[in-house]
């Protein structure tokens, strides 16, 4: 399996690391254009109401205000990230559906004036009854949040594989548990923002936006503004984290564009931190019930899964999220008979959207928790039960997933060994414990209408390589990984590579950064583009050397016959010769890549393979529970991780380490607390995600499987690793204090209450 790779597989610093370390990397709010105006959004202070009247006259008169707009002024065009789930207007038209809903926008000479103007807008609301609990919202008679959406359930998915009822009949033991997973905010450090500029002479709109999805944003803006897509250019500046929250068009994008068009000046909207907590996106809270049937030895025979997702006031990625949540119950364990039902339910609360794992962390928590409970009750070791049920690469899969590489069992063994499983599980003193959890994640989703990526590689006269890719780097290092792939293919060092990315006016199409598909999809496209450019050069050199192009390799800035490095020429000489032969310069290669899938397909209709490949991992945690205060300290988290082959081990570690701390936050520290539809902790102070001092010891173990579909064997890294930290921690808490927690987060209060309850029960028993 070992390959001789020069750039792929090395710990290359990010291509823009120096820019970032110098403070010279330009994020959306760092961009300034002459005459730039500033905008702010007026948001609803009520959870559910009809808009009777909006009076903007006082705001318009405030000196410095250049424009005010409401939902009535804009085209009646809905938008949404998933075409069939479009249910939002850029500014509310007749109704507001949650506290924080976008109602009006002001554009002024500076942000302070814009904010002052917001307070001068009078909105007459007619309050409507509101509903905050999805289980209440889906009942008959609950207030209707969207016209025509019965039981406030905007999406429902139900699928069955195998014969579940019969299989339950064959089980030795059946377990059923209910779980709850809370609302979590992505909290990227960089606020959402957009800067728009319109050229009336050519009718072209340019928007710089802190986004993960430049091309989808272009489509949505084109649609809602009623401009041709060819007249809308989206440029992605540096993005300071997204984690899924910057998937979607937001009011700031639309309003910046709107004012730029109508006022003829550049317009910038930047969200305040509070707006990000309330009015962007969050991870869907979910109520989940799982019924699992096993044989005595722990083999899973049947599973029934039911999830109610609290969608908040709008859909965002609803159908995709709920489908993913359900479909990926089928990895990493073999579940031969499965029914799942998932509902996405509206409530008058902040909107759920894609968040690192996208519906799967919640399901994973439930399944991994239950698996531990099952293992405990039937007397099988929790690590063993996972290995026993692991899917195998190449084996037929109940739902038709094509799994070429699977390092799952290996990852369980390695994670367990590294945490000291045998010595510790069930053997540590009260308050200390170890737990583990497994996960798997798709590298992008094939089976979701048309998802493909394009790339262009230009090889210049001087040997400098320009890569054009639509890939949206949001800090994970996509551009660097793509650069490494191209460098490897062309046989040049990374220093020779320049990447231009995510500018819809220049770069080829790419769906964007979500579903962890960038390395595989955009990476493969870039690789094909590099091969295409290389091929032209190789054919030229082959001719010169009187060799076969197929026998030539490009390496170390040379082109030579395989096995005979002295029988070749330098890249510089080859390029010079190419140019002097009057062949077109630069040498341009094109590539595009789409995951192999049946077409046309949607997640809802077809079975079959859902991703080009799948990552696998196991995380093992060691915790210390303070029995007096209830505080849980995560001491150590081990991740044994199969991402095929890491293109850049340092960046993969970065993803892993970040997702461990993120998962820890989800398990122990974070919760969007809502009271009657109002977020009570919309600040970095009150929504306390982990600091340096909460950091555990983090160990990463690589499980190399070298996938045939991924570029240089790569699979996704960074989303899968956020699926299993939470259950691993909660499983470790069980080992530490013998209490099964069925919801997230596990706060000190809950731990103390459970300990007190346990003591009471023990006392009663005696």
């Amino acid at each position, binding site marked *: 399996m070992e390959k001789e790779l020069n750039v792929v597989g090395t710990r290359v610093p990010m291509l823009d*690391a120096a820019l970032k370390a*110098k*403070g010279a990397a330009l994020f959306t709010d760092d961009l300034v254009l002459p005459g730039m105006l500033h905008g702010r959004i007026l948001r609803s202070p009520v959870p559910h109401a009809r808009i009777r009247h909006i009076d903007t006259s006082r705001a318009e008169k405030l000196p410095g205000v250049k424009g005010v707009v409401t939902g009535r002024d804009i085209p009646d065009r809905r938008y949404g990230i998933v075409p069939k789930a479009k249910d939002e207007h850029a500014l509310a038209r007749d109704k507001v559906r949650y506290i924080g809903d976008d109602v009006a926008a002001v554009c002024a000479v500076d942000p302070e004036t814009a904010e002052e103007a917001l307070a001068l807008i009078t909105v007459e609301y007619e309050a409507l009854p509101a509903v905050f609990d999805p289980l209440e919202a889906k009942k008959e008679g609950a207030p209707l949040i969207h016209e025509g959406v019965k039981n406030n359930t905007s999406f429902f998915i139900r699928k069955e594989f195998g014969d579940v009822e019969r299989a339950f009949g064959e089980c030795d033991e059946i377990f059923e548990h209910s779980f709850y997973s809370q609302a979590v905010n992505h909290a990227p450090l*960089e606020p959402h923002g957009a800067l728009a500029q319109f050229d009336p002479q050519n009718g072209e709109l340019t928007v710089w936006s802190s986004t993960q999805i430049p091309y989808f944003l272009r489509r949505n803006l084109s649609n809602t503004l009623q401009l041709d897509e060819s007249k809308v250019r989206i440029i992605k500046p540096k993005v300071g984290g997204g984690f899924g929250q910057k998937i979607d068009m937001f009011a700031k994008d639309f309003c910046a564009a709107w004012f730029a068009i109508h006022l003829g000046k550049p317009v910038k909207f930047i969200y305040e931190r509070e707006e990000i907590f309330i009015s962007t996106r969050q991870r869907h809270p979910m109520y989940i019930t799982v019924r699992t049937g096993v044989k005595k030895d722990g083999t899973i025979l049947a599973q029934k899964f039911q999830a109610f997702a609290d969608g908040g006031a709008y859909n965002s990625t609803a159908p995709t999220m709920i489908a993913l949540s359900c479909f990926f119950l089928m990895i990493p364990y073999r579940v031969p008979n499965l029914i799942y039902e998932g509902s996405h339910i509206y409530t008058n609360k902040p909107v759920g959207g894609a968040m690192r794992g996208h519906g799967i962390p919640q399901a994973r928590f439930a399944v991994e928790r239950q698996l531990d409970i099952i293992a405990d009750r039937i007397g099988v070791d929790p690590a063993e039960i996972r290995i026993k049920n692991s899917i195998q690469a190449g084996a037929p899969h109940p739902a038709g997933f094509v799994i070429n590489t699977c390092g799952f069992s290996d990852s369980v063994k390695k994670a367990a060994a590294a945490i000291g499983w045998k010595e510790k599980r069930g053997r540590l003193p009260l308050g200390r414990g170890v737990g583990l959890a497994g996960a798997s994640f798709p590298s992008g989703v094939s089976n979701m209408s048309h998802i493909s990526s394009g790339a262009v590689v230009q090889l210049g006269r001087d040997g400098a390589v320009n890569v054009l890719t639509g890939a949206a780097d949001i800090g*994970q290092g996509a551009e660097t990984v793509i650069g490494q792939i191209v460098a490897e293919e062309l046989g040049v060092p990374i220093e020779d590579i320049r990447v231009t990315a995510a500018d819809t006016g220049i770069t080829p199409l790419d769906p964007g950064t979500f579903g962890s598909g960038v390395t595989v999809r955009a990476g493969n496209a870039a690789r094909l583009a590099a091969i295409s450019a290389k091929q032209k050069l190789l054919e030229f050199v082959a001719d010169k050397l009187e060799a076969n192009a197929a026998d030539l390799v490009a390496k170390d800035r040379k082109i030579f016959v395989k096995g005979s490095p002295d029988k070749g020429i330098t890249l510089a000489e080859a390029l010079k010769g190419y140019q002097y032969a009057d062949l077109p310069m630069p040498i341009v290669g094109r590539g595009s890549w789409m995951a192999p899938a049946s077409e046309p397909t949607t997640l809802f209709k077809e079975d079959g393979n859902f991703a080009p490949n799948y990552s696998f991992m196991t995380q093992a945690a060691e915790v210390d529970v303070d029995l007096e205060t209830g505080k849980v300290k995560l001491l150590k988290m081990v991740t044994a991780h199969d991402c095929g082959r890491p293109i850049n081990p340092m960046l993969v570690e*970065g993803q892993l380490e970040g997702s461990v701390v993120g998962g820890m936050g989800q398990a122990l520290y974070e919760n969007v607390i809502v009271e009657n539809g109002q977020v009570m902790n919309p600040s970095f102070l009150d929504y306390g995600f982990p600091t340096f001092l909460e950091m555990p010891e983090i160990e990463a173990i690589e499980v190399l499987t070298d996938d045939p579909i991924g570029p240089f064997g790569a699979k996704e890294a960074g989303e899968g690793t956020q699926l299993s930290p939470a259950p691993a921690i909660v499983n470790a808490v069980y080992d530490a204090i013998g209490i099964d927690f069925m919801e997230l987060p596990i706060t000190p209060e809950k731990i103390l209450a459970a300990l007190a309850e346990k003591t009471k029960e023990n006392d009663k028993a005696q």
Partner: protein
Amino acid sequence: MKKVIELNINGDTHDLLVSSNHTLLEVLREKLGLMGTKRGCDLGACGACTVLINGEAYLSCIMLAVDAVGKEIITIEGLAAGGDLHPLQNAFIDQGALQCGFCTPGMILTAEAILTEDEHPTEDVIKTKMAGNLCRCTGYKKIVEAVMSVNEKIGEEA
């Protein structure tokens, strides 16, 4: 109420027309175009706006510009000497201690303040003093390693 103040930033003096309620962060970004200092929360709870005031780490979003008069202000742009990067910058780059880069200027300046104040702080001291700088991408591990690596080298070179 506007007035003219003189600020010393990265070794240069600037005469600036400011309002008395302008924060130092606003003045750096809007008046001087020094965009390296970031606005993550505007309430002093994330550290992205960290600058050095007489060598100490301050949150520029909750500091009035007028309070910076007469002080030596260093922003991330002023850390490198000429064309060379500061050892902390190099460590962050080489060791992958940054991902999206938004928290990075604040991290580096706080680390600089810590290493200036303390001869050889322990890892625990570094973590404690950097805990006011939030990061959502890295999980902090590589940042600690990068700062420790510079910490260990201090005093080693001639």
